[in-house]
């Protein structure tokens, strides 16, 4: 099957064309068309994955595309272990989201357009992951961005959605420029876009250290833009204005992971430059803790998950920056599953309630048993409780960072794990436990089975997918991944029991704190105190513990979160506003000169001429 892997992206492309052409007539059944074609792509990906598991070399096919000067540019595809894994993840999540959307978007009169966009996105994403050269990567990279723009702005009648779509597009474009420049620089130096050729050149020391660092950092800038790393992260939470299945697919599992994927693909280049690795690690680490603290104070269910995504992507970057190729990729996979699950579950909640503020939710577990259970699974997984998948991948990251030897980053990683457990369970308790804080809960129903089914699959994967790489049973995934074409994928981490325990303890601490604060808060202690003075005292003491937590530790945390949120809103956005201001300034001045007076135009022309010549004289000293 592997030699036909190029067919995989074609399936969604055909679906896209069909949907664009006949979508209007197909109406609701366009969903099934989309699902069918994605299923085809998924089956092919599975076959490709299994075949690739047995092979010990990469399969690639290239054809000539065009000639620049004396350089030949090719197009083709390549199936390395990483590609095969990504194909599997992308097509699987895409398929599940396709199915889920059938329920979620039911009744929307633009469902065919939605499915067309989804198909286009799937095509671009699949095309991105099988690209063997940078140019192709860039092309699909752009396409993915366009699809994201379209899908975020799907609810075009909402002004926030429009603004968010534009923001997402422009911010990721800033990153894309980095990729474009890096690609051009590499082409200029190496004379080829082929990844293999670039890696060979890196290995043979054909490139100067400065250039390697520069291009690696430029590529990382692209990854920052797509993966929502600091400081280009602000678009991702806003992008939650899109439909929730889209958030699950694009802004949790696939497109945002493309940044991590890009760094992973270009890993040999990064490896060659310590400075670039440092940048990746520190930016990743900072983003992880930064976004996690912001997630503490968010009240919109999707925004919490969005900041969580930013934080987890930072985690992956941190792992990659600490030479943890396997750890980063592994977490990419498990995260794709459990975060997609969380988003879909959140979507299920939103679908039922039509609101997103978690302060107005609560007590949903009674009414939505399955959703609650699956959400719980997702939370356990992301918090890193064994035997859920997140535990293994997170542990792998901690191991890697520890063995890399930067204590500061390790502390950041551990603390982020704690924060993650805390805010996720805050979310869980606020939404599902206790009593409802909103009146009209009676109509709330569990979502239809067409939505539950994908969640169930993802739930199973969130539980089970961790076992492909554990230090107990064997590190299959890791061994297989580093059997890729390049030899410099970094070493695998070795197990350390104390880190394992530390990770677990930290997560449990976070969960416990969240439980104390948010699950028990609804307990009305005053009424109880009047009836049972003894119990009251005990409980009071317990409450005192709560208060102690609250006023020392927690308010510190919250304070950090609020501060960073503030920072995010005003400083990062402020810089963007400054850039905008400069542009508006130029525009205003330009418009002032362009006042309709043709003689002013003439004067500008003459002055321009004079300035040019004077500049020429100044620069060259041509006057004797």
């Amino acid at each position, binding site marked *: 099957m592997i030699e036909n892997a190029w067919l995989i992206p074609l399936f969604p492309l055909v679906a896209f064309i069909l949907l664009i052409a006949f979508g209007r007539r197909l109406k609701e059944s366009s969903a099934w068309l989309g699902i069918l074609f994605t299923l085809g792509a998924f089956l092919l990906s599975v076959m490709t994955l299994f075949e690739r598991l047995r092979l010990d070399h990469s399969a690639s096919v290239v054809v000539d595309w065009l000639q620049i000067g004396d350089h030949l540019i090719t197009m083709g595809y390549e199936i390395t272990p990483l590609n095969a894994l990504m194909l599997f993840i992308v097509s699987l999540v895409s398929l599940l989201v396709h199915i889920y959307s059938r329920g979620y978007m039911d009744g929307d009169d633009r469902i065919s357009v939605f499915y067309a966009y989804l198909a286009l996105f799937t095509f671009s994403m699949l095309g991105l992951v099988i690209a063997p050269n940078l140019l192709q990567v860039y092309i699909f990279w752009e396409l993915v961005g366009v699809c994201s723009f379209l899908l975020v702005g799907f609810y075009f009648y909402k002004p926030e959605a429009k603004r968010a779509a534009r923001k997402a597009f422009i911010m990721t474009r800033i990153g894309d420029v980095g990729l474009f420049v890096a690609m051009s620089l590499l082409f200029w130096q190496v004379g080829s876009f082929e990844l293999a050729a670039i890696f060979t050149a890196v290995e043979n020391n054909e490139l100067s250290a400065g250039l390697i660092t520069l291009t690696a950092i430029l590529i990382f800038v692209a990854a920052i833009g797509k993966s929502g790393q600091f400081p280009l992260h602000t678009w991702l939470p806003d992008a939650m204005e899109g439909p929730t299945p889209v958030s699950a697919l694009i802004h949790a599992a696939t497109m945002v992971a493309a940044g991590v994927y890009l760094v992973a693909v270009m890993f040999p280049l990064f490896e060659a430059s310590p400075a670039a690795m440092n940048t990746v690690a520190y930016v990743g680490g900072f983003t992880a803790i930064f976004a996690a603290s912001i997630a503490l104070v968010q009240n919109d269910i999707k925004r919490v998950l969005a900041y969580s995504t930013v934080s987890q992507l930072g985690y992956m970057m941190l792992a990659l920056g600490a030479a943890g190729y396997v750890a980063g990729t592994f977490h990419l996979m498990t995260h794709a599953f459990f975060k997609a699950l969380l988003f879909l579950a959140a979507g299920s909640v939103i679908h039922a309630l039509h609101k997103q503020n978690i302060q107005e939710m609560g007590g949903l577990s009674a009414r939505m048993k399955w959703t609650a259970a699956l959400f719980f699974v997702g939370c356990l997984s992301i918090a890193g409780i064994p035997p859920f998948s997140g535990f293994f991948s997170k542990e792998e990251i901690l191991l890697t960072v520890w063995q890399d030897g930067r204590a500061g980053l390790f502390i950041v990683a551990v603390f982020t794990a704690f924060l993650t457990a805390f805010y996720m369970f805050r979310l869980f308790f606020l939404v599902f436990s206790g009593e409802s804080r909103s009146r009209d809960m009676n109509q709330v129903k569990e979502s239809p089975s067409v939505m539950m089914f994908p969640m169930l699959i993802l739930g199973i994967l969130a539980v089970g997918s961790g076992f492909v790489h554990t230090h107990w049973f064997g590190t299959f995934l890791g061994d297989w991944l580093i059997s890729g074409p390049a030899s410099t994928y970094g070493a695998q981490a070795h197990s350390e029991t104390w880190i394992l325990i530390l990770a677990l303890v930290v997560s449990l601490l976070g969960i416990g704190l969240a439980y104390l604060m948010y699950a028990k808060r609804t307990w009305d202690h005053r009424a109880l105190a009047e009836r049972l003075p003894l119990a009251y005292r005990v409980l009071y003491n317990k409450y005192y513990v709560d208060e102690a937590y609250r006023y020392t530790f927690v308010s510190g945390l919250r304070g950090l979160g609020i501060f960073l949120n503030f920072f995010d809103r005003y400083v990062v956005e402020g810089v963007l506003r400054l850039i905008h201001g400069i542009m508006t300034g130029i525009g205003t001045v330009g418009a002032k000169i362009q006042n309709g*007076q043709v*003689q*002013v135009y003439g*004067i500008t022309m*003459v*002055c321009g*001429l*004079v300035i040019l010549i004077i500049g020429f004289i100044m620069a060259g000293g041509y006057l*004797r």
Partner: protein
Amino acid sequence: MNGELLIFLILAVTSIGGGILMLNLTKVVHMVMALAFTFLSIAGFFFMLEAEFIAVAQILIYGGAVTIMMLFGIMLTRHNDQDESRKRGLKWIAAIGVVAFFVLIVLAIDGINWMPEETAFVENNTAQIGLYLFGHYVIPFELTSIVLLVGLVGAIILARRDRKLNKEGEAHD
């Protein structure tokens, strides 16, 4: 000071004087007349430079045709118009730009240091021009006739007052 230099100086004064008058007069018609003066003086330069044909053409076309066309233009639009001055600032910027440009020109031609060669211009250089036009430069020459045709057509269709359309076709927007 010989005669040639004297004539040159007179012509220079009249031509530049005409231009400066144009800049300073207030009545539009007077401005045109001042420039006509300049155009005629320029024809004098051409005579001095042994370009008799061009000089005559200059008198006919600029001293005659263009000036009269401009006068017609004024008559057809708004006669007796006064050209009151514009905003000060704009004038100053224009003046600075133009003066700077002038200084640059002077710097550029200041470097010209070759001695004027005594050229043996053939007696009948008008015939020479004709030979060039119908030999060497016949392609641009023919092309110029198309330009003239285009100008003719354009002038007619733009300036003509067409009765048919004028009733309904009063200016849009």
